[in-house]
């Protein structure tokens, strides 16, 4: 921190701190000093550092010193619930100090009445989300409403930057810079790997203020009893040990990686919980009211534990959590730090956390993560260019607010960090898409959504365009969801994906919201259920549940495997496993790539220890099987985990080094990506965000279904007729960064070039056992595989029908 002029805290504020027995923290004063010097700030502080107050202090002091009507401060949070919590918490100092400051929230939950009130008399402090901000900025009165804005506070900025929501927010901030050039920006973030990138994201010229790291957390490893599992991610065998941990502490958060895992663990704990400890369940598909009840109970200290997914990664501090238990692999150091930070919110005392790996590879990952936390090195991807689909949505919104000239809009948009490198050609292509679809066939001249006036400014064609925009705003695209309700008139429990619901027949049971439920009937957009039931319950799964292992953590795991001196920290079972691997085969090394081959059950296996995460391994698997097909090895299938890729074939693979050559990313990649189901999924998201198709609404009527256009059909037609269309380019960019994870595949192939170690074995190696156990649990398909699966299912059924009963 640079030496700056000391911040001046008005008496009333100093007295308020003193009355509560507090002293303003150094970073709170540093933010204030920056603001008083007319500068913005990016505050990086761990959880519990009083960040939110630091963000609001300059505004409260401003409004106290020079009261004025109209919007003064805009606060943006990634979560609706967080915005509401912060608003509530802000009321306390405002009331205590007798400040005349009006505060309101504006989110998707805000009622029409409240919205009208806010229009009639704007609050001085408005708390909102990126989506609601985009909507406000698309209204014709936006220019007048935001002109007097003095401060913009962006909370949990690390959770937004780098995502499509972050792209949308960056574009909105660029807009605000046009409407209110004098407004200062304050960013609040947890500790991140790239603070410079975050500062650039928020806008140059900000003071970077980093609070001390606080006490180092204490993280322990808890192993499930009995034999250490070889595979599986659920880790439910550890339930008794987890319950014992919960019993020993006053309050715990148990983090898991997926909603299905949360439901399973909750059920397992419930069966064991003879002492009937109050334990809650929290995940993103539960009814919001239910989630709020759990949060309130946790804040009030009436729960001993809550089982949670990423739904609790962010949020208001509860201040009273004794320990965090992480069941399953942490997947990344930054994510683990964030979760660990949810325990004990006093910066001067260590947070306590317990990691519970579900299998032996996860033991390695947990140890690597503990090492990463101790070293304070974080993972995190460097910034990527903003999505063109998000830009399309934004441009339409801007036209709905007021006519704009493309030159001025290009200048404004490229002031947003994610779009700083956007070319004019790409901008024009996106604008062309918004105006008339951007198709090579000039068929849509008469259906333009935007028209240009004599001065070249763009206007929406009619009111319907603005209505469409507002109905489809946002960058989160979910699978269609159905509400789950207890009986016809009972409470709503939450939502499940329509796909899951379609599999249920009356009488089926499933685990949801911590209950065993029996499916009664589907009524329009609601699934009616009753408590109880018999038979093996199903568990709803949700798309996109699992995060891949981070690059940084993967590198640590590889390094640990090589550094045998460090093995002493591992449990005996893991040490023996690794020693056996060293004797029978070889250990994966830190920079190169270990590839094993062995015969088993009449097939030939190839196992690559790449440690690049599931997405990258799936891509690698697709590309390698294509090459092996051409080479005559007759590949039969593959399975990818976060650590390993295994391929099996009818003939042994030849010339392993050539197989892994960098030229793999040429024609095969193009061809595979074009027909991959991953690309189709990416295209659906892009098409919805860019405004090509409407958001799917759950339980749409039959006639609507038949009329709705499936994005797959559009994808096929567009790919055939205009493969360079801007939405297809956006789709490929998305997939390359996300589900296909091309960056990691390319980096890995470059890294291991000339350093591939092939070990030919006569049987399976110890390290390969876990991945072989995953076979049959994972599947990824292209169009050709789908046909094969259908043929197989058809043949199986015909065979079964031929057996006399």
């Amino acid at each position, binding site marked *: 921190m640079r030496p700056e002029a000391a911040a001046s805290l008005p008496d009333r504020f100093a007295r308020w701190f003193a009355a509560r027995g507090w002293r303003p923290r150094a970073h709170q004063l540093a933010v204030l000093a920056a603001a008083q010097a007319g500068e913005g700030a990016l505050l990086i502080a761990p959880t519990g550092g009083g960040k939110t107050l630091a963000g609001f202090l300059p505004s409260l002091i401003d409004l106290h010193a020079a009261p004025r009507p109209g919007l003064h401060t805009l606060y943006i949070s990634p979560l609706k619930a967080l915005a509401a919590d912060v608003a509530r918490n802000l009321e306390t100092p405002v009331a205590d100090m007798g400040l005349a400051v009006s505060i309101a929230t504006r989110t998707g939950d805000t009622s029409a009445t409240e919205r009208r009130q806010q229009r009639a008399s704007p609050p001085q402090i408005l708390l909102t989300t990126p989506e609601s901000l985009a909507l406000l900025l698309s209204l014709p009165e936006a220019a007048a409403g935001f002109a007097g804005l003095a401060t913009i506070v962006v909370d949990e900025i690390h959770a937004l930057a780098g995502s499509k929501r972050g792209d949308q927010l960056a574009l909105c901030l660029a807009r605000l810079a046009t409407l209110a050039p004098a407004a200062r920006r304050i960013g609040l973030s947890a500790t991140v790997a790239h603070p410079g990138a975050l500062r650039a994201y928020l806008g140059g010229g900000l003071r970077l203020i980093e609070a001390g790291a606080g006490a180092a957390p204490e993280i322990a490893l808890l192993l499930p009893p009995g034999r250490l599992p070889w595979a599986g991610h659920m880790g439910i065998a550890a339930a008794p040990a987890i319950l014992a941990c919960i019993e020993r502490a006053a309050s715990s958060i148990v983090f898991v990686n997926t909603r299905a895992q949360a439901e399973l663990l909750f059920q397992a704990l419930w069966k064991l919980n003879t002492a009937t400890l109050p334990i809650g369940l929290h995940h993103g598909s539960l009814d919001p009211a239910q989630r709020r009840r759990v949060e309130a109970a946790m804040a009030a200290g009436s729960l001993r534990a809550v089982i949670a997914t990423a739904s609790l990664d962010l949020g208001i501090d509860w201040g009273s959590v004794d320990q965090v238990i992480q069941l399953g692999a942490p997947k990344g150091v930054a994510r683990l730090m964030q979760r660990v930070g949810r325990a004990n919110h006093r910066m001067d005392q260590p947070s306590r956390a317990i990691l519970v790996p579900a299998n032996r590879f996860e033991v390695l990952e947990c140890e690597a993560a503990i090492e990463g936390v101790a070293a304070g090195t974080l993972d995190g991807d460097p910034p990527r260019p903003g999505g063109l689909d998000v830009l399309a949505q934004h441009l339409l919104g801007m036209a709905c607010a007021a006519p704009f000239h493309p030159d001025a809009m290009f200048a404004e948009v490229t002031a947003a960090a994610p779009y700083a490198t956007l070319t004019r050609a790409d901008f024009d292509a996106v604008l062309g898409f918004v105006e008339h679809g951007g198709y090579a066939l000039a068929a849509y001249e008469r*259906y333009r959504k935007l028209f240009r006036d004599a001065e070249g400014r763009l206007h929406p064609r009619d009111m319907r365009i603005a209505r469409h925009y507002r109905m489809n705003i946002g960058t989160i695209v979910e699978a269609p969801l159905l509400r789950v309700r207890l009986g016809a008139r009972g409470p709503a429990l939450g939502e499940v994906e329509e796909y899951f619901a379609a599999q249920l027949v009356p009488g089926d049971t499933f685990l949801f919201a911590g209950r065993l439920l029996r499916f009664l009937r589907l009524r329009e957009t609601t699934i009616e259920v009753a408590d109880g039931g018999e038979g093996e319950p199903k568990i709803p799964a949700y798309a996109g549940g699992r995060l891949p292992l981070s690059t940084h953590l993967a590198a640590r795991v590889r390094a640990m495997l090589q550094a045998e001196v460090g093995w002493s920290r591992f449990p005996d079972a893991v040490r023996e496993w690794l020693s056996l691997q060293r004797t029978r085969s070889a250990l994966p090394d830190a920079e190169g790539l270990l590839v094993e081959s062995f015969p088993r059950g009449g097939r030939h296996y190839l196992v690559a220890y790449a440690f690049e995460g599931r997405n990258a391994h799936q891509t690698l698997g697709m590309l390698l099987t294509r090459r092996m097909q051409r080479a005559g090895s007759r590949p039969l299938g593959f399975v990818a985990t976060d650590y390993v890729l295994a391929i099996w074939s009818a003939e042994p693979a030849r010339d392993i080094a050539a197989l892994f050559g960098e030229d793999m990313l040429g024609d095969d990649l193009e061809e595979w990506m074009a027909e991959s189901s991953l690309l189709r999924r990416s295209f659906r998201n892009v098409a919805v965000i860019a405004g090509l198709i409407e958001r799917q609404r759950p339980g749409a009527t039959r006639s609507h279904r*038949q009329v709705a*256009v499936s994005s797959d059909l559009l994808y096929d037609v*567009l790919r055939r007729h205009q493969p360079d269309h801007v939405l297809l380019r956006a789709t490929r960019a998305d997939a390359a960064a996300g589900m296909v994870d091309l960056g990691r595949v390319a980096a890995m192939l470059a890294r291991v070039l000339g350093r591939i170690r092939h070990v030919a074995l006569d049987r399976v190696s110890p390290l390969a056992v876990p991945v072989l156990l995953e076979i049959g649990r994972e599947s990824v398909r292209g169009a050709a595989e789908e046909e094969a699966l259908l043929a197989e299912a058809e043949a199986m059924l015909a065979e079964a029908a031929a057996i006399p009963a």
Partner: protein
Amino acid sequence: MTPAAIRLAGEALLLDPTGGVVWPARRLLAVADLHLEKATAAAERGWLLPPWDSAATLARLAALIARHRPQTVLALGDSFHDRRGAARLAPESLHLLSVIADAARLVWIAGNHDPAPPEGLPGEAVACWRAGPLCFRHQASSAPPGTGLGEISGHFHPKARIAARGAALARRCFVVDARRLLLPAFGSYAGGLDVRHPAIGALFPEGGATFLLGAARLFNFPLPPPTLRIQADGILL
């Protein structure tokens, strides 16, 4: 392309993997729910879908005709996405239509999206088409066909989902029993309705068979009666 042979009311029919049905004895081909000009209909409402749907649909139809060489081609209704669709056809699509009309007698059966005959286009327009024991119409009648008779219709855009190795694969499909045949939608942008929907179930109270469209062949799966729907791999979800 390998068609599947079925019998309906005693007549031998071929189901084509692209979604058309051929009646060889009468040299007749039927397709349903072309939904031509769906993209421009959406564009009028502000959704600028890729505009090649009509041309793509007609090109597939032309290829189907070239393979089976029928004398008569029936379009079983909802050939146009809306009443004004025919007027919006682009020159390329009009050309494809004239090629089709030159190759076979083209018959437009009225649908709910296009109740009036298309103006200025080749072909004749009828409410339904009867030949021998078979009746071709847009929407299946609620009463089952009389003894010895069969009915071929579209309208519902049937689609089936199959569970295979933990994945669900959705495809357009034919649905058939001894007396009724539902055709899948042939239009490039036509949506689908799950075969388990009660509207389809009501037409097949005893269950039937589904034929899912594949790249070069059809995949045959039984359709259980609406009251008996079990799940397992390879069974309709």
